[in-house]
C-alpha cells in the first residue's frame, strides 16, 4: 500500500460495501422470503427481516419437490462427473504433455475444440446419442459391411445398443469429457520442470510410476480447484438432466425441481416455500465454493488462459 489517502480508502470501502450489497441482496432476499409465512410473503412491501418460518418452509419445499432423493441424485451425479472429469482430464493431459507422438496435438485439439460445442447447441442430436451410446459404432459396423457379414455368416444380427436415458450413467457420462479440465491439467503439467521428469527417469521410474508417484501428488492443488469448479458446474446442470430424465421421480436432480417449486404451478403464490427450496438447492455448491475458496482461486489463477 502506497497512498495513505484516507479519502481514497473511504471510496474503496464504499465501493466494496456496495459490491457486497449487490452480491448479497439476492441471497438475503432468498433467506428472508424463505423464512416468512404465506401471509408475510404476500405482503407488499416485503419484510426485509427474517421471520421464524424458515424450518417449516424448508420442510414443505423439501417434501413438495421431493428433495430428499433428488439431493442424493444430484450428489451422485455431481460427484460422479467431478471424479470422472478429473480422472479423464489428468490421464489425457498426461498423455498429451509427457509423450511425444505425432497425433498428440491433434488429440489435444480434438478435445479442446469441444469447448466450442457447448451442450446447449448440440442438444438435439446429443439426446439421440444418449438413447444409444453405441450408435456410432453400429453405424461404423453397418457401413463397413460387418453387420451384414456377421448376419450372413452366423445369422445373428449385430445390434449394439446402450441406452443412457433415465440412468446415472446417462446423467454423468456425456458430461465427463472435459476440455476445460484437460486444458487446465495440461497447463499445469507444462509447468513441471523437465528436470523432474528426467530425475525420475534417472531414478529408474517409468511413466506410470511417475504419474502416480510424482505428478498426481504434485497436482493436488489443481485437482482441488478443478474439483470445485467441476462440482459446482455439474451440480448446477439443468438442461441435460431435464432432457434425459423422463423418469423424474427416480432420476431427477434438485436443480430440475426448481421449476416445480415456482408458484402458479401449484396454486397459491407461496414464494416463501419456493425461496426455501431455492435455498436448499443453492446451498451445497455454495458451501463447496466457500470451503474450497483457497484452492479454487489458486487453481483458476494458474489457469490464466
Amino acid at each position, binding site marked *: 500500500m502506497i497512498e495513505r489517502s484516507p479519502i481514497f480508502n473511504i471510496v474503496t470501502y464504499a465501493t466494496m460495501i456496495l459490491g457486497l450489497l449487490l452480491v448479497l441482496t439476492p441471497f438475503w432476499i432468498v433467506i428472508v422470503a424463505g423464512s416468512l409465512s404465506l401471509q408475510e410473503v404476500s405482503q407488499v412491501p416485503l419484510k426485509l427481516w427474517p421471520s421464524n418460518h424458515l424450518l417449516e418452509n424448508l420442510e414443505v419445499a423439501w417434501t413438495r419437490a421431493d428433495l430428499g432423493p433428488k439431493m442424493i441424485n444430484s450428489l451422485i451425479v455431481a460427484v460422479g462427473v467431478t471424479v470422472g472429469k478429473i480422472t479423464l482430464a489428468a490421464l489425457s493431459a498426461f498423455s498429451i504433455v509427457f509423450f511425444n507422438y505425432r497425433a498428440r496435438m491433434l488429440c489435444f485439439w480434438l478435445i479442446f475444440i469441444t469447448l466450442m460445442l457447448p451442450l446447449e447447441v448440440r442438444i438435439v442430436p446429443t439426446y439421440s446419442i444418449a438413447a444409444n451410446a453405441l450408435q456410432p459404432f453400429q453405424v461404423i459396423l453397418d457401413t463397413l459391411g460387418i453387420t451384414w457379414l456377421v448376419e450372413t455368416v452366423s445369422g445373428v444380427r449385430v445390434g449394439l*445398443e446402450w441406452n443412457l*436415458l433415465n440412468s446415472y450413467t446417462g446423467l454423468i457420462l456425456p458430461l465427463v469429457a472435459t476440455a476445460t479440465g484437460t486444458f487446465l491439467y495440461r497447463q499445469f503439467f507444462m509447468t513441471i520442470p523437465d528436470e523432474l521428469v528426467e530425475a525420475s527417469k534417472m531414478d529408474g521410474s517409468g511413466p506410470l510410476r511417475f504419474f502416480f508417484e510424482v505428478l498426481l501428488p504434485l497436482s493436488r492443488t489443481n485437482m482441488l480447484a478443478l474439483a470445485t469448479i467441476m462440482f459446482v458446474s455439474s451440480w448446477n446442470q439443468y438442461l441435460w438432466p431435464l432432457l434425459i430424465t423422463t423418469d423424474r421421480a427416480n432420476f431427477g436432480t434438485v436443480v430440475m425441481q426448481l421449476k416445480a417449486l415456482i408458484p402458479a404451478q401449484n396454486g397459491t403464490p407461496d414464494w416463501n416455500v419456493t425461496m426455501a427450496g431455492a435455498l436448499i438447492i443453492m446451498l451445497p455448491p455454495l458451501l463447496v465454493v466457500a470451503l474450497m475458496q483457497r484452492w479454487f482461486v489458486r487453481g483458476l489463477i494458474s489457469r490464466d488462459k
Partner: protein
Amino acid sequence: QTKFEFWYGLSGDLSDRIQDMCKDFNASQADYEIVCVSQDNYEANLQNTIAAFRANKQPTIAQISDGGTVDLMLSGAYLPVRQLMEENGYDINWEDYFSGVASYFATSTGELLAMPFNNSTAMFYYNTDALKAVGFEGAPETWEQVEKIARDLKAAGYDCPVAFDPTGQWQWWEQFSAIHNQPIASNGNGYGGLDAEVLFNQGKFVDQLGWFKKMYDEGLFVVKSKATGDTANDAFVNARCQMSSSSVADHGFIGKQAVEGMHWDVAMLPVWEGTERQNSLVGGAALWTLKGKSAEEYKGAAAFYAFIAKPEQAEWWSTVTGYIPVTNSGYDAMVAKGFYSEAPYKGRELALKSLTFTPPSEYTRGVRLGNFGAVRKEIQDAMSAVLFNNVPVQQALDDAATRSNEVLRKFEATYAGKTLP
C-alpha cells in the same frame, strides 16, 4: 407380473387423481403393474414421448391432448385402440362414445385410434357474490353482459373483473371460434387434408381480439398467468378476479380451492348477442398406445383401458375432476343418479350441454392441423402482442397466420405423400 408405463400431461391435483387411479388399477388385478409418470403438461408430454420414442424408450401409453392428434395420426408410432382391444379380447361398445370425442380422436371413417379418457370443454366461471354486488343475477351468457358486468365491477372497486391468460388460447380462441362457427383453418379445419391453411385472421376472431384489447386497456381484463406469478384459476379461487374462463376439468379444483365463503358458479362460454351458438369443441386428451412394445405390455394396456372404461371408474374420474363422462351411457347414468343437480357438482352438466348444443359443423367437430402446438403458440403470441405491445390486431393475426401456414407447410413437406387416416 408385467410392468408398463403410462405418461400423462397433468399436474397438481389432477395428477394426484391419476396416481390414485393407477393405484386402484394395480390393486384391482395381479398380472400387471402400471407405472404412471407425470410430464407436467400436454406439450411436455408430447415432446417427451416423441423424444423417448426416437430413443426407443417410449411408454406403452401416452396421454396426448387434442392438439397433438394429427402429430400422432401421422407418426406411424401408434397401435389403433380398437385393434388393440379386439386383439386382446375386449369387447367395447365403441358406439357408446360421445360423438364429439369420436370426431376429434377417430379416423375419417369413425374408427377411434386412441382411447378416450379425459375430455372437457371450456367454461366460464364467475363469482356470484361479486356479480350480485353489482346487481347481476344469474349466468352471463353474452359478451355484452360480460362487458357490462366488468365495467360495473370496476366501478365498484374490483381490481380484476375478468382474469385473462394469453396462453389460454384454447378457451379464448379455439372455443370462441367453434361456438361462433368460425373456421380455424381451411379444408374444414384441416379435416380435408394436410394442405389446409389457417383462417383465423379473417372473421369474428379479429374483432374478438380487438375487444380483448379494449377490455384489457380499460383494465377490465387483467392478465393472470404463470408469468405474472398468479394464474387465472388462482386469482379466481382467491376471489382476486371475479370472472374467468377455463376447462371444466378445473371444476373440481375450483370447488376445493375457492376461499371460504366465496360463492361461484359456472356457465357455458358466452357468445355475442345475435349469434347462433354452436356446439363447443371437445378438449382434453386421449390415450394412445405406442408401437414397439411387447405383447404382454399391450395386454396390460388393454386391461387398463378396460378398467377405466368401467362405468363406476368413469364416474369416479368425473366426480373427482370435472372431466365429462366420455360415454353416453355413463352420462345418462350420472344424470339419473342426480349427480348434477346438487352442489358441488352442479353446473358440470353445462359442459355436456355446450358440447352438444348443436350437431357438429365443419368447424366444430375439431381441429386437424399438424404441429398444432406451434400454431397455438402463434396465437398466444399474437394475443400478447396486441395486448402488451399495442400491435394492431389485424397485423398481429396476419403475422401469426403467415407463420402458422409456414408451420403447416413444413409439416406437409415433412410428411410428403402421407394423408390423414
